């Protein structure tokens, strides 16, 4: 319980300062919307096309627009050496990591919640047919993005080339999760059922979330304390 108290304290602090300025959220959202608009010009979105590209398009949008949010998560702590203050305070590395992950997760879910209906409008896609499972995919895959992104932004926070290193590390590491999310989103937006053959993607997503959450919690202290 005490573990969660400090975790949530960190998360709520981050969310409070983000919602005060909404800098990152606005940037990320407008970036996501811009890509969605651009792609609708690039392709002539008929229903067949949507079936093929929906998942890929949506997850590209999320992956790229999330980099802004993930980068900011720890960059927020840099200016006044706030990170040192946090590490020296009673909050443990794992709590700090999890708190940051939760804050990033909330922001990512927000971006997804706005982008998905917009996608539906721009591309004439009836995406709500299998909304339950689709929501599950989004919830699982956004956590994958948040957990991996938070870990790698913690790794790169003190580097000279922070903004360049994060994508170089993050995107390859995210490929398994993104692949799973893309496959499932394609199926579900097309209104298909998830057959036995495609169960593997759900297992991959869940496994990815579990393994990297545990690894992150276990290694956070090492990453923060030199």
């Amino acid at each position: 319980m005490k573990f969660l108290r400090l975790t949530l304290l960190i998360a709520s602090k981050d969310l409070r300062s983000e919602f005060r300025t909404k800098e990152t959220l606005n940037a990320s959202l407008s970036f996501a919307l811009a890509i969605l608009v651009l792609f609708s010009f690039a392709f002539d979105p008929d229903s067949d096309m949507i079936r093929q590209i929906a998942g890929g398009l949506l997850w590209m949008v999320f992956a790229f627009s999330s980099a802004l949010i993930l980068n900011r998560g720890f960059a927020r702590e840099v200016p006044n050496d706030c990170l040192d203050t946090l590490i020296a305070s009673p909050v443990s590395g794992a709590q700090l990591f999890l708190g940051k992950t939760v804050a990033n997760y909330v922001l990512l879910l927000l971006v997804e919640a706005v982008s998905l209906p917009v996608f539906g409008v721009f591309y004439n896609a009836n995406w709500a047919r299998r909304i339950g499972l689709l929501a599950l995919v989004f919830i699982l895959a956004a956590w994958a993005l948040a957990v991996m992104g938070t870990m790698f932004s913690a790794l790169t926070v003190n580097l000279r080339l922070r903004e360049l290193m994060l994508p170089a590390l993050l995107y390859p590491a995210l490929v398994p999760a993104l692949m799973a999310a893309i496959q499932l989103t394609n199926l579900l937006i097309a209104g298909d059922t998830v057959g036995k053959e495609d169960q593997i993607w759900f297992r991959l997503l869940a496994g990815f979330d579990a393994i990297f959450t545990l690894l992150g919690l276990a290694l956070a202290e090492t990453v923060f304390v030199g």
Partner: protein
Amino acid sequence: MRNPILYLFAAVAAVLLAWDLYQVFMILPDELNQGMIYRIIYFHVPAAMVAFAAFFASLVASAGYLTTKEMRYDSFSASAIEVGFVFATVNLVTGSIWGRIIWGIWWTWDARLTSMFVCWLLYAAYLLLRRAIDEPAQRARLSAVLSIFAFTDVVIVWKSIEWWRTQHPGPVLSIRGGGGMAPGMQAPLYWNALALALLATILLVLRMRQEAARREIDSLRRQAYAL
């Protein structure tokens, strides 16, 4: 290259490779469906084995570094990943050339190929990360963490042919319960793997000496500027 053991390793590797090439080209018959191109397997698969062994060694050394903070482990880990990365490149390139003949395409995005490519990218990112950090202890610590994260993808590559239906063939070696390859054809593959492993060890030792030189440079630099 002054170490006599290294010379011995090099000699053994050279003899093994020569004998293997002789076996593969002169003794073994063409494969029934593939003709002679299948012989590329004698480089393709051992290269992957060596790369994965190197990545695994780096995983162990990284855990070792994080528990002991001994810079030796970091040197080993970085060297192993660089050598492993080279062999992973060999694996990808030979695979691609093989695929051009067998599948008619250079590349296909099936689970095996994709995960291997991702693996290659991840370890490339590891090498990039090391260059971006100046402070040796910080570099060692953060790259050890990344090495541990990256290894999960090696497991995915390993298991991908079982988890997904891929264009890439399933297990063919009898040690993994596959039965696709005649025993006579398997033996040279293992010998070649041994030869490449010896070669990798030589490269690893050379590379580790350079890491030692780098450490000396770091300390000389600190000395020079602290005076």
